[in-house]
Structure formats: structure tokens, C-alpha cells
């Protein structure tokens, strides 16, 4: 448009813009005449003017701050600071600048906050800072940002924390709201962290979305523990030490009044209930998309906070469960005494809610669309069904709304993928306790005789009754372990039933009078301690065996259980007709359950005596098998090659006598797993055992173990959970469930589970050992070393010594690690020390050849530990070694599954055997698994290692796009590396994108692109050289 023409348009526009619509019309008619073009121009400007009311009204400079911050950092990239090398500045906070840096000692990425001078000037600030940082670093929780170090260098005080890649909850929310399931996934992790903090008497004081980081894999980290307090303090002392109390309060309020509790805003004393309130505000905001008390100004927000109740969440989102509204209302109670009093209770409520929702979700998934829910799910109560169909409707609305919401942050997408996986697997497993199934615990019978030596008899009868009843599939029976926890326990029946979570109890006593035994048995309703049935048996010692069968029969009848023919048969079965053999067997069991080496040797004696009396006593053979198997598993002084053949012979003999003996199937299945490495046979045996004795916790536990070690993690976790439900107080079952979660890379849950185990028994070495391994993988070396040291002290086992040495080596303390190695070697003079342990320790010390030598020795010895080869992440660095792969192959841990589920695909991929990766890629392509970071990284890993063999660019492309989305730079290089060889055009495009994105002018990328543009295919040798020029090997 010409200038003169524009002046004309402008003049007209200025004139009419103040007029009413009618006036405008006549004015324009008059002034434009026939100039239709002119009129259209003015009218369209008027229209824009209406729409442009708020356009450009806030200054462009709103975007200025971060430009400025970015350009004026104190420390430049590449500069060294203490033993850190600065990578780049990642932010400016109230206390100072934050940098991403490389820890040159431990070779890991860290975040360094350098305190600004103003802050550090005051000695009292510094002292407080140090004190708080110490307290916070004592918080030992995966959802809390780890503080590595505080210190001083170049006249600057600094704090070093772990570096977390991800988005803050603030970035994710950004005016949007989240789904209930996503909200719960995140808030439960926050709550977990706060529970830990509150136990340590640390109040965060500043819970808000800015202090919560969500990693791309959905893992949540809470920042600024303890430091929050300092930031608040800064308002008191920074500009002027003499600022009075009033102004202080004002200073605090200015910051984050939206997330403050009423008592905090009023400047009153605060405690952990303040965190609970702030947590509630965050939870509220996640669902509602706004904070509950937000006003137009600080004073209005303040007034709302003090005077008004927030609107219920259901006002903002249609599918908010009532329970969530109730939970939020209780966290946001203005009176702190009426709020949740502890985070723990709040956490439990959130978890319950999530479980209910998962259940609903499962229900939803199991419904074919449009079909009547009632017809499909007879077990579910009517209330649930209503809720479900409502959820269904909401679900559709949700999808509609989501579409209109445009985009959700990537992290959220990943979280929902993650949750989806979880639901998927929960609905796919059939082992969780079906609702409505009857449950029962047989409490230890009381030895009412004068003779304490008759205890084996009371214990033995109890166990026999348990075992008999365990074969009934319609009944859940607590395992021996958990029931025996209440031996000599004075607790009343009601509380025992509730602790064991069973409906019914059986109690009894046995007394010897002359040559007769008097047995009293009662079946109790655990809800009200009323007796359902009771009976007295007077038996000769020869009839004791029959007595236990009668008791089991009567219980089944009185609980009105329907038994199948085979169950009926098994219930009445006698394992031996010989009373002496029976009593010897019971003595064997009695000693076995002491679970220490000499006692187990004794148990073998008794079993052998029992067999001498009754050569067809299958249970006694199964007992021998158990006992021998225990030696190598517990790391006692017996080689696998000695113990397992003995155990196997006994199990086979037992099955020969009685093919339906569940105990013998468990024994055989576990040997086939640990020693024969015959996974499919092992699976058959263990499944058979579960079929025969569905309540046998041990059967589930070994099955879970086998699944876990072969990489079927989701099934393993489900089985492990079932084993624990049947035997809730068993230490080994509890600890192993933690281990299964650990191998499934569900660290948070693993730590939770192991800590639960330690709550039952703080001195259980296996739990300490397991906890150490989680910490070790998280590179929390100090904590790992502490756990292994504890495990070493508590156990007579060699395993923790090896783990301890490995951790020392990994944390760079080679001398101490060498000392541990020497310790193991001296132990090996008199004891059997598995070669596997030496292999691991040498591996930790970086001695590959020696490590592989020992692994081969371990194979030659058929050590049980080799069954962990596939899932133990400590080996990851060695997985590309042909010798390692050969061992994997010989152990049979790299078989290609016929079909492979998506979730398992990713995990399988991580295990790095080539066959697994190929299978995974196939599954990925066929099933179109939704992309996830772990998957990409796994694939990248494969590209890096295997490029010349089978390059697979999807991982790189995926990760590349992921980087774009998260604006974080991931290691992208392998993509081009592979693509150059196979898909040069894609590679060239991606490389030039990368260069423009990240400005790596002199990087190997530029060189690669340059060479590429010259028209030449890079030779592999050239590529290798380029790789060498990258920062580190890892960056490829």
C-alpha cells in the first residue's frame, strides 16, 4: 500500500472508530463513495481493532528476562569450578545461579547452585544454609533431589545436587489441568517424598509446582528441601537486618501466597501440616487448572485463603471421583487440627483411590463397548457398575476435551503411556486375590503338654492342617510363616485376623495325656471373634495323621466350601500311614524352619530317618530336596554342583512316589530354574505346583523368581505380590518382591517394598543387601555401601561382601575394593566362594579379562548366581563382549520368545542380548508400541553398538524428536552415524537440523555433514575417527 493511500485509510479509521455501528455505516457510505476497496479496508481494520483489544498491551519485554539471564552468566561453558566442569547455565534462582556441570571425579552430570554474594555475605545465612543442606541431604529418598556436596571455591559458596532432566510441574501445568490418573501418579510420588521428610522432622515449607520436577519417564523429584526455608529467610535479612517482623511477613507473602497455608500466611508457627496444605493446593491446581484461592491481587488471594472455602474440584472437571474431592477438602482445611495430621495417612488415601480407579479402569477395559456390564461381571457390586458406566461416559468426554486442548506436555504423554502400561498389566494378570474368596489363617496350635519337646508336634499339626487346606482353590490360606508370627502372641483374635487380612481363624491346642493326644480345634469368625465351629479329637499317636485330615475336612465343610473331586481326594490323603515316620518328618520340618545351616543339616537327618521307617514317604523326600537346595541359595558352604544333584534326586524320588505332590513340584521347578537353567520345564513344574496348591506362597515365590530372572518382569511382580499376600509376614517373600521390582526397574516401589520388609525385621540381611543394590544402581554409593556393610555384619553370607567391594570399586575407592577382594580370597581358602562373586568384583575394578575368566569358571561350576546374568544391570558394560554373550547363550538366557508383549519388549531390549533386540524390534514394528524415552535410548544403545550389524534408525529418530519436544539435548549422534551408512538423506537432514538446533559448530557433526556434502560416503574408519572427536565416547 502506498503511503498516501494508507494516510487516507488511517484518517477514515481514526474518524469512525469512535462512532457507534450505525453512525459508522452512514459515515463510511458518505466518505468512501464508490471506492469499495477503501471501504473494505477500513471495515476490516475496524474488525481487527475489536479483536486486537489486548494485543501488544503487555510489553514485549516480558520475554526479555531469560535472554538477559542467558547472556550474562558468570561461569562460561568449559570452565572448571572445584572438581566440576561447567557445561552451561540452566537457571537463575533467588539464591544464585544454577549450572549444569560435569563432575570430573565421578563422571556424572550434576547441577551446581552458586550462591550470590549478597546471600553469602552474612555468616548467619551461611550457617543456616549449611545446617539446612545437611538436614536435607540426610533425606534419603528417590523422590527427593539428592544433595551431593556443599562447599566453597573461588570465594563462592555452592551446593551440588544431582542433575534431573525433565520439566517442572509448573511447565507441565502451564494453565492446563491434568487427568485424575496422571495427578495421582505424580502426587503419590510427592507424598512419598514428604512422608520421608516428615519422618526425619523436616518440613519443606515451599511445596509448589516450581519445586517439583517430572522426569521424562514420569519419575518425580522434589527440589529445594530445607533450602526453601532459607529463601524465605532471605526476606528477613537481605537488604536490611533490621527489617521488622511485619515487613518480613509481607516479604514472604509476596512470593508464593497461592501455596501457603493460612498459618504460614499469618506468620504463625508452622509444622508438617503446612506441607500437607500446600500439597493440597498443588493437587487442586493439577485437577482444576488453577489454585484454589487465587485472586486478582495478593491481598485478595490472602483474603480468600483466610475466609473462603475453595470450590469443589467437580466444578472444574467432570470426572473427579468424590473421594478425591474429600481428600482435597481435608488437606485444605483452614484449621490445621482438622486437616490430615500426617502425610502418611494422606498418602494411604491417595493410594487407595488410585487402586480403586485402576480397578474401575480394568473393569472398563474388560467391557466390550455397548455391552451390559452386569452380564459380564457378576462379582462386582451394583455401585461399582454404576460408577463404571459413568466413568465410561466421562472417558469419552475426556477424549473429546483432550483433542480440543491441543497439546499436552510430552512428559504427561509419557506418564499416561506409563500408566497405561501399568493398567494393561494389571488387567492382564489373573493372580490378584479375587474378591469374595474366603480366607483363613491357621494359628499355631498351642503345646498344652508339660513337655516343651512336644512343640514339634503342635507346630507340625498346625503345618499339616495349613498344607491340607492350602490345596483348596476357593480358599485363601495364610502361609506357615505368617501364621507362625503369632505363635505365643497375646493379641486378640480380631486384631490378628485384621493384621493378616483374613476372615476366619483356626485356633487349637494339643495335649498328651498318657498315650493319648487330646486336640481341641476352633474355627473363628475374625470379624467378631465368634466361634463358627469347634471340636475335640482324642487320638492315639498312630491316629494323629488321620486327625489332621479330619480337621481340614471339617473346616472345609463348615466354611461351606465347594470342593472339586480331586481337591476332595487330596484333602483326605495320607502322606504316610506310619505314625513314627510322621513324627520324624515333623521334627525335620521343625528344624528346617530355623533356617540356619546346622539346623538344616539336622532336618536332613530327621527326614532320612523318616524315610528309613517309611521308604515311600514322598513329603520327606521333598523335605530333603528343600534342605539341599537351600545351601547354595543361601551362600552356605556347599557348591551348586554338590547340592543341586542331591536336591534333584530327592525331588524326583518324591514325584515318583506321588506325582501330585505340590511340594515336590516346587522343589523340582526351583532346581530346574536355579541349576538346570531349563526355564520352560521350570515354568511347567511351578505352574503345576500352583495348580495343585494354589495357596502355597512358596510356589508363587519361586515362579516369580524364575520369571524375574528371565526378564518377564511384569508377571514376576504380579506373582511376587501374590506370594506376599499369601504370606504377608515372610521376610524372604517380602524382600524378594522388592528384588523383583528392582529388576523390573521400578526403583521407587522396590525401595518401598524393601523398607516395608525392614519394618517387619530391621535386621534382615537380605533386605539390606537388596536395598543396597537399588542404591548402587542409582549411584547413591554412600547409602549402598552402608546397606552392604550392614548386610555383611548381619549375615554369615559372602554375598554382601562381594556387593560391598563392587560398590567401593564403582565409587572410585579402588584400594578398599582391592582389600575386599583380598578378603574374599582368604575366605575362599576354607569356604566355597562362588566364582561369580570374583567375576563381579573384578568387573567392578575394571578388569574385564579377569572378570570374564571367572564368569567362565562360574559357568563350569554351574553356579546359581548365573541365573541373574540377564537381569543384573551391573553387567551392562560387559554385555557386548563376545565371551559374555557366549556365556549368556550357554546359560540359555538369550532365547527369542515366540511372541513378545510391548512392555516386555522395552525391558528385553535393555538386557542387550542381540537376539532380544531383534525380537524387540520386530515386536515394536508389528505392534506399534507408543514411543517412550527408555525405548529410544535402548534402541540408540543398540545402534551404537551394533550399527554395522543391524542399524535401526527408529530409536535415533524417536530420541531426536523427543529432544525437540523437551528442548533438552540428548545424545543424538548415533542416529547420523547409522543413517550415514544406511539412509544418507535422512542422516544429512538430521545432522543439519542438529547443528542449527544446538550450534555445535565444530562438533563432529559438522565435520560429518561437511564430508557428506562433499559427496563422499564416509568410510567406517572415518566415522570412527569422527566419533573420537566427540566429547566422550558416551556422547555417541
Amino acid at each position: 500500500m502506498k503511503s498516501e493511500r494508507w494516510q487516507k485509510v488511517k484518517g477514515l479509521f481514526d474518524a469512525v472508530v469512535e462512532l457507534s455501528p450505525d453512525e459508522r455505516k452512514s459515515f463510511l457510505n458518505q466518505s468512501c463513495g464508490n471506492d469499495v476497496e477503501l471501504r473494505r479496508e477500513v471495515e476490516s481494520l475496524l474488525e481487527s481493532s475489536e479483536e486486537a483489544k489486548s494485543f501488544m498491551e503487555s510489553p514485549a519485554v516480558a520475554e526479555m528476562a531469560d535472554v538477559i539471564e542467558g547472556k550474562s552468566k558468570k561461569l562460561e561453558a568449559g570452565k572448571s569450578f572445584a572438581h566440576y566442569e561447567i557445561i552451561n547455565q540452566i537457571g537463575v534462582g533467588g539464591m544464585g545461579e544454577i549450572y549444569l556441570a560435569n563432575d570430573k571425579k565421578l563422571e556424572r552430570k550434576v547441577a551446581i547452585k552458586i550462591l550470590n554474594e549478597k546471600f553469602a555475605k552474612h555468616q548467619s545465612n551461611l550457617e543456616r544454609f549449611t545446617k539446612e543442606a545437611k538436614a536435607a541431604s540426610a533425606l534419603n529418598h528417590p523422590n527427593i533431589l539428592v544433595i551431593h556436596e556443599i562447599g566453597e571455591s573461588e570465594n563462592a559458596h555452592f551446593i551440588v545436587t544431582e542433575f534431573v532432566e525433565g520439566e517442572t510441574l509448573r511447565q507441565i501445568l502451564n494453565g492446563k489441568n491434568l487427568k485424575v490418573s496422571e495427578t495421582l501418579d505424580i502426587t503419590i510420588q510427592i507424598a512419598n517424598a514428604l512422608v520421608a521428610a516428615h519422618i526425619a522432622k523436616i518440613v519443606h515449607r515451599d511445596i509448589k509446582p516450581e519445586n517439583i520436577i517430572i522426569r521424562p519417564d514420569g519419575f518425580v523429584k522434589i527440589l529445594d528441601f530445607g533450602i526453601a526455608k532459607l529463601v524465605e529467610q532471605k526476606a528477613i535479612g537481605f537488604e536490611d537486618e533490621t527489617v521488622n517482623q511485619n515487613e518480613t511477613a509481607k516479604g514472604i507473602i509476596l512470593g508464593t501466597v497461592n501455596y501457603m497455608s493460612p498459618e504460614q500466611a499469618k506468620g504463625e508457627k508452622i509444622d508438617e501440616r503446612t506441607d500437607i496444605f500446600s500439597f493440597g493446593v498443588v493437587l487442586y491446581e493439577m485437577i482444576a487448572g488453577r489454585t484454589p484461592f487465587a485472586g486478582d491481587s495478593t491481598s485478595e488471594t490472602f483474603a480468600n485463603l483466610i475466609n473462603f472455602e475453595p470450590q469443589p474440584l467437580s466444578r472444574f472437571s467432570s470426572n473427579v471421583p468424590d473421594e478425591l474431592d474429600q481428600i482435597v477438602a481435608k488437606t485444605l482445611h483452614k484449621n490445621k487440627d482438622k486437616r490430615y495430621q500426617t502425610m502418611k495417612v494422606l498418602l494411604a488415601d491417595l493410594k487407595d483411590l488410585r487402586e480403586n480407579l485402576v480397578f474401575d479402569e480394568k473393569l472398563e477395559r474388560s467391557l466390550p463397548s455397548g455391552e451390559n456390564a452386569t452380564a459380564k461381571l457378576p462379582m462386582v457390586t451394583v455401585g461399582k457398575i454404576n460408577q463404571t458406566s459413568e466413568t465410561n461416559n466421562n472417558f469419552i468426554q475426556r477424549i473429546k476435551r483432550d483433542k480440543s486442548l491441543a497439546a499436552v506436555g510430552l512428559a504427561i504423554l509419557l506418564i499416561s503411556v506409563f500408566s497405561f502400561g501399568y493398567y494393561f498389566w494389571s488387567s492382564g494378570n489373573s493372580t490378584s486375590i479375587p474378591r469374595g474368596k474366603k480366607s483363613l489363617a491357621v494359628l499355631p496350635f498351642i503345646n498344652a503338654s508339660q513337655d516343651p519337646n512336644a512343640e514339634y508336634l503342635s507346630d507340625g499339626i498346625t503345618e499339616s492342617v495349613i498344607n491340607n487346606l492350602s490345596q483348596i482353590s476357593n480358599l485363601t490360606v495364610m502361609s506357615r510363616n505368617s501364621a507362625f508370627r503369632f505363635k505365643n502372641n497375646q493379641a486378640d483374635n480380631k486384631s490378628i485376623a485384621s493384621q493378616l487380612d483374613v476372615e476366619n481363624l483356626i485356633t487349637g491346642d494339643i495335649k498328651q495325656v498318657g498315650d493319648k493326644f487330646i486336640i481341641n480345634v476352633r474355627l473363628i469368625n475374625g470379624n467378631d471373634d465368634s466361634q463358627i465351629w469347634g471340636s475335640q479329637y482324642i487320638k492315639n499317636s498312630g491316629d494323629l495323621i488321620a486327625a489332621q485330615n479330619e480337621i481340614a475336612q471339617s473346616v472345609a465343610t463348615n466354611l461351606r466350601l465347594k470342593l472339586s473331586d480331586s481337591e476332595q481326594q487330596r484333602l483326605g490323603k495320607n502322606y504316610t500311614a506310619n505314625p513314627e515316620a510322621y513324627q520324624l518328618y515333623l521334627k525335620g520340618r521343625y528344624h528346617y524352619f530355623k533356617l540356619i545351616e546346622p539346623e538344616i543339616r539336622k532336618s536332613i537327618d530327621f527326614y532320612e530317618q523318616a524315610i528309613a521307617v517309611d521308604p515311600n514317604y514322598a513329603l520327606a523326600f521333598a523335605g530333603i530336596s528343600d534342605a539341599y537346595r537351600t545351601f547354595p541359595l543361601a551362600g552356605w558352604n556347599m557348591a551348586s554342583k554338590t547340592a543341586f544333584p542331591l536336591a534333584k534326586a530327592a525331588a524326583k524320588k518324591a514325584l515318583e512316589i506321588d506325582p501330585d505332590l505340590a511340594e515336590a513340584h516346587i522343589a523340582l521347578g526351583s532346581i530346574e530354574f536355579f541349576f538346570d537353567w531349563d526355564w520352560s520345564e521350570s515354568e511347567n513344574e511351578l505352574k503345576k505346583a500352583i495348580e495343585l496348591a494354589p495357596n502355597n506362597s512358596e510356589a508363587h515365590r519361586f515362579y516369580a523368581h524364575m520369571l524375574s530372572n528371565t526378564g518377564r518382569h511384569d508377571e514376576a511382580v504380579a506373582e511376587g505380590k501374590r506370594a506376599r499376600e499369601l504370606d504377608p509376614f515372610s521376610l524372604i517373600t517380602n524382600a524378594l518382591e522388592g528384588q523383583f521390582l528392582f529388576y523390573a526397574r521400578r526403583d521407587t516401589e522396590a525401595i518401598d517394598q524393601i523398607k516395608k520388609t525392614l519394618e517387619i525385621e530391621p535386621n534382615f540381611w537380605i533386605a539390606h543387601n537388596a536395598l543396597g543394590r537399588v542404591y548402587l544402581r542409582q549411584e547413591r554409593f554412600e547409602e549402598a555401601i552402608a546397606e552392604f556393610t550392614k548386610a555383611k555384619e548381619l549375615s554369615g553370607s559372602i554375598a554382601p561382601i562381594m556387593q560391598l567391594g563392587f560398590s567401593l570399586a564403582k565409587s572410585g575407592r579402588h584400594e578398599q575394593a582391592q582389600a575386599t577382594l583380598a578378603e574374599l580370597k582368604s575366605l575362599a581358602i576354607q569356604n566355597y566362594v562362588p566364582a561369580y562373586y570374583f567375576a563381579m568384583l573384578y568387573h567392578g575394578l575394571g578388569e574385564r579379562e579377569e572378570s570374564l575368566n571367572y564368569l567362565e569358571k562360574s559357568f563350569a561350576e554351574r553356579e546359581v548366581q548365573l541365573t541373574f546374568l540377564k537381569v543384573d544391570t551391573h553387567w551392562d558394560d560387559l554385555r557386548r563382549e563376545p565371551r559374555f554373550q557366549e556365556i549368556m547363550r550357554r546359560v540359555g538366557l538369550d532365547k527369542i520368545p515366540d511372541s513378545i508383549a510391548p512392555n516386555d519388549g522395552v525391558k528385553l531390549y535393555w538386557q542387550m542380548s542381540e537376539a532380544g533386540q531383534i525380537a524387540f524390534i520386530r515386536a515394536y514394528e508389528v505392534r506399534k508400541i507408543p514411543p517412550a524415552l527408555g525405548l529410544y535410548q535402548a534402541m540408540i544403545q543398540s545402534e551404537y553398538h551394533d550399527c554395522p550389524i543391524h542399524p535401526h534408525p527408529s530409536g535415533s529418530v524417536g530420541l531426536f524428536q523427543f529432544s525437540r519436544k523437551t528442548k533438552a539435548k540428548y545424545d543424538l549422534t548415533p542416529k547420523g552415524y547409522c543413517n550415514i551408512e544406511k539412509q544418507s538423506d535422512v542422516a544429512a537432514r538430521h545432522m543439519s537440523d542438529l547443528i542449527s538446533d544446538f550450534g555445535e559448530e565444530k562438533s563432529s557433526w559438522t565435520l560429518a555433514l561437511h564430508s557428506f556434502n562433499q559427496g563422499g560416503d564416509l568410510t567406517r574408519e572415518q566415522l570412527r575417527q569422527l566419533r573420537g572427536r566427540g566429547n566422550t565416547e558416551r556422547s555417541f
Partner: protein
Amino acid sequence: MPEASEKSKEITEMLHAWSEGKPEALDLLLPFVYEELHRQARRYLRREQENHTLQPTALINEAYLKLIEQKGVRFESRTHFFAIAANLMRQILVDHARTKHRLKRGGVNSDLPLEEALLVTADEKNIDLIALDEALNRLGKMDVQQARIVELKYFADLTLQETADVLDISTATVKRDWQTAKAWLYREMTK
């Protein structure tokens, strides 16, 4: 200091060249003023960390004082400096937007999965400074004064009165031109 005066002489010359209609002179000037603006901005950020607001007017004022006091740079007037600073602000912000845009764009849109394409769009809810810059160039060709007003008001965050002072026109004119410019720019950008 001889070097300082040498440099400031240079700056002063450039300023004159710019005011005489040689826009390329500003490019040479940019690094000097840029540096000063950043230094000032840093101080402001630290001082105002409680609410994290940045007041460009005060910022420019201080930068102005500093350049005069320490470097001996001569401006025709304070308002002259404001006009320059506003233009610099525009460049800084648009540069920044370009960098951001480049990071996001990547050039492989056909490869973007659905969720990423959505993400990119959703991020653009703020004013597209690059498009605005281009539209503003076009507006400047038709009407220099309006373009200048947008620079001062939007990029340098001056009030109506201050803008009127810098350009030596009435506030009523600023108000009118601002409204028209807004409407025109808005239309250009939503075409």
C-alpha cells in the same frame, strides 16, 4: 581514558549516522549498548527478584546515564537515546524469538508425530515476534511514525506520555496511531 574516549567518539558518530537515516550504523552500535543493557538488566533482576519484573524504562534510563557518565557518549537528547534503545530492544527480542523458533522448528515437520505437531502449535500462543517484526517493517514503509510508536510503546514499554515526549508529538496522536497500528498489525498477523 584515551581508549574510552576513542570508543565513545565512535559511538557518538554512529548515533548521528543513524539519526541521519543510515540504519546500518545501528548494527555497529548494537554490541556496545547491548552490553550495557544487559548489565543493567542483571542488576534489576537481582534487585527485583521478589516479583521478577523488569522495567525497561528504568533500564534504559540507567543505561543512558552510564553511557554518558562513564563512556562519554553524546546523544542529541535523552529522547534520542530512547528511540535508539527501543529499536535495540526490538532487535534483541526478535533475535531471541528467532533462536527459539529455530530450536523448535527443526525443519522436519513431516516427521513430527501428531503430539509433537500439537505441541509446537500450542507453544505459539504468545505473540509471534518474528511475524510482528516483519509486519512492523511493512508498516514502517507506509508510516514511520506509527512503527516508531510501536517500538517505543511495545518494545521499550514506554507510557503514552513518554512516547509522545520522545517523538515530540501529542499524546492524542500517539493514542490514535497506536490504535490504528495495533489494528493493522493484528490483521496482518492473522491473515
